[in-house]
């Protein structure tokens, strides 16, 4: 845990030091130690700092959401991006924009509603003909669903040029140009989800032992699942509203956390808190540096890291049961 926190600190500072502009690491460092030119101070404090903080928030939200949805679906491959939850909230935001909305706070609640709808849809689908019993089949269904929702989003953007210009960069997932107000807007949702998770962590751990065990221990599996789905939707909706749909973070982070701490969700949830931001921030630094003067979408980097992990999990001879 200490090592993880230290590396999170390291990545965070690196994210403040490195960037695409003229302000080099040394200038930025002098700002951090209290000196520095005005230009460097502006770049670090009003561009890189909000970006880094938002990266931390988004990373935590996506990592925790991944852990939760894997526990609910009892499926090591479940992931908000892969299952179509992020695509659902992107579509909801697109619909709202086409209908004429544009307020930032509205965007967050709409994105959360969309995430909830996507989540419920895919979990309902999992009950049809035992799709949920086969982890790989559920992922396939989710991939199809997110393909469908993505196509619908593109269709809407074609229809309405104005909203297309407004969200074109948002819809591919990126941390660029976000302000501190965005972070403040999602903070209540994150706190709400945090309280919810503290309340259901223990029952969730019991649920991992099986439905009957959980009932025997005095828990109500249906309620736990519902609350868990709500928490996932709140987290994913908030993260998507700020940073756009970013896939594969919720797959890789719980995977690493389980490898470090074993299957108990009460322990892995703690580990995902630093792991998510580490992944998002490193991906964001790469996204800034790889194509130096311009930037690339964050989702590209996470896909390049995450897809091989997906393949590795699928190829494991026995899928680790959750």
């Amino acid at each position: 845990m200490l090592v993880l926190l230290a590396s999170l600190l390291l990545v965070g500072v690196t994210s403040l030091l490195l960037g695409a502009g003229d302000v080099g690491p040394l200038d930025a460092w002098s700002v951090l130690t209290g000196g520095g030119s005005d230009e460097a101070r502006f770049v670090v404090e009003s561009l890189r700092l909000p970006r880094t903080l938002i990266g931390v928030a988004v990373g935590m939200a996506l990592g925790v959401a991944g852990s939760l949805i894997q526990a609910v679906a009892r499926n090591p491959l479940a992931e908000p991006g892969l299952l179509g939850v992020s695509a659902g909230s992107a579509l909801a935001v697109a619909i709202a924009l086409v209908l004429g909305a544009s307020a930032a706070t509205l965007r967050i609640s709409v994105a959360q509603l969309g995430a909830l709808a996507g989540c419920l849809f895919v979990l309902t689908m999992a009950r049809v003909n035992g799709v949920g019993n086969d982890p790989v089949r559920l992922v396939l269904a989710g991939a199809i669903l997110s393909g469908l929702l993505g196509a619908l989003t593109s269709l809407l953007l074609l229809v309405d040029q104005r909203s297309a210009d407004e969200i074109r960069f948002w819809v591919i997932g990126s941390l660029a140009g976000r302000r501190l107000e965005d972070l403040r807007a999602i903070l209540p949702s994150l706190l709400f989800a945090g309280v919810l998770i503290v309340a259901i962590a223990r029952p969730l751990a019991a649920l991992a032992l099986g439905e009957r065990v959980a009932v025997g221990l005095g828990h109500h599996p249906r309620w736990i699942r519902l609350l868990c789905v709500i928490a996932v939707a709140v987290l994913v909706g908030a993260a998507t509203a700020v940073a756009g749909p970013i896939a594969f973070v919720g797959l890789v982070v719980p995977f690493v956390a389980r490898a470090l701490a074993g299957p108990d969700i009460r322990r892995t949830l703690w580990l995902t808190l630093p792991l998510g931001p580490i992944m998002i921030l490193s991906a964001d630094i790469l996204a800034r540096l790889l194509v130096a003067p311009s930037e690339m979408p964050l989702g590209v980097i996470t896909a390049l890291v995450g897809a091989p992990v997906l393949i590795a999990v699928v190829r494991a001879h026995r899928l680790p049961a959750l």
Partner: protein
Amino acid sequence: MNRPDAGVTPPPGSWRLSWALGERDYSILIERRACFVCLGLLAALLAVSLLSLCLGTLTLSPREALAGVFGYGDPVSAFVVQELRLVRLAAGVATGAAFSLSGCLMQTLARNRLATPGIVGIDNGATAFAVASVVGLGTSLAPPPMALAGAATATAITFALANDVGTRGYRFIVTGIGVGAVFGALTQLLMARVAIDTANAAYPWTVGSLNARDGAALVWLWCGLAIGLVVACYLSRAMRILRFSDAVAQGLGYRVRACRYTALVVSVALAALAVAVAGPVGLVGLIGPEIARQLSSHRGVSLIASALSGAIVMVAADLVGRLLLAPIEVPVGIVTAIVGAPFLLWILLRPAPRFQS
């Protein structure tokens, strides 16, 4: 008249064509239903094509459109039909047929109904390499050979990774989805690295559209399709047997491995050439064979019918995309995704699934 089988009546529901060539006699059985299905599909394809020639910003009557095809009639409508719509129609028919035939071949050889090049990441590999060719990275070959190289790379990776999980189950498919995601990300990476104009030139490849077809790639595709159809006809008997276990096919005297490799090569090449023309519209490769399968009897693998229904789906989807939001054109890839995804879900969710093709 000493044909050995002259007196044998053909099985019910089929015709026998027999002829003598030199010393030897040849005969083939033609299934009556397959004949009717193919003729029906051909008629439907002609009807859809005629519609696609008639409708658009400038609406023509069928008579005017046909006159335009043969070069007489009003010069304006002749220009629209010959220069714009006819080329587009040719691209639509060829890509649809190629995607669908390629999907049908791969489904059969992998014995997996969901294993089409679009789903297991081969289209994305071809797209990534074609985009690399357009944005001028490294050795700049024309898009078609680059697409072939990309498809071959993606196929090699997917099938190598599937080596110990087999091609039958869902694990193969999800492995392919992962490979496809990597290539999709590479495409984005390439697009982000170049100037905006170059990126715009490469954009159609990433969504799938018949708008920016270029002549050379279309010629490549038609040649490939002609060869592919001939090989497919030659293979159709073997494909029918490949649905059984390898031991059965081998016992009946087929060289299973050779058949499979030939089918794989044809399938991958067709998908790649079609991607070079229209971008990844891979869901056609799933819808086309499924329509053909519903229409045909269960005895055969209907390769020709698959190609025809794929062409119909592609032309119809392009027509819908052009007309739906009239001044704006919806890329055909989006139309097929919206139509095809519910269909895929149905395949996945229906009760008592039989995933053999």
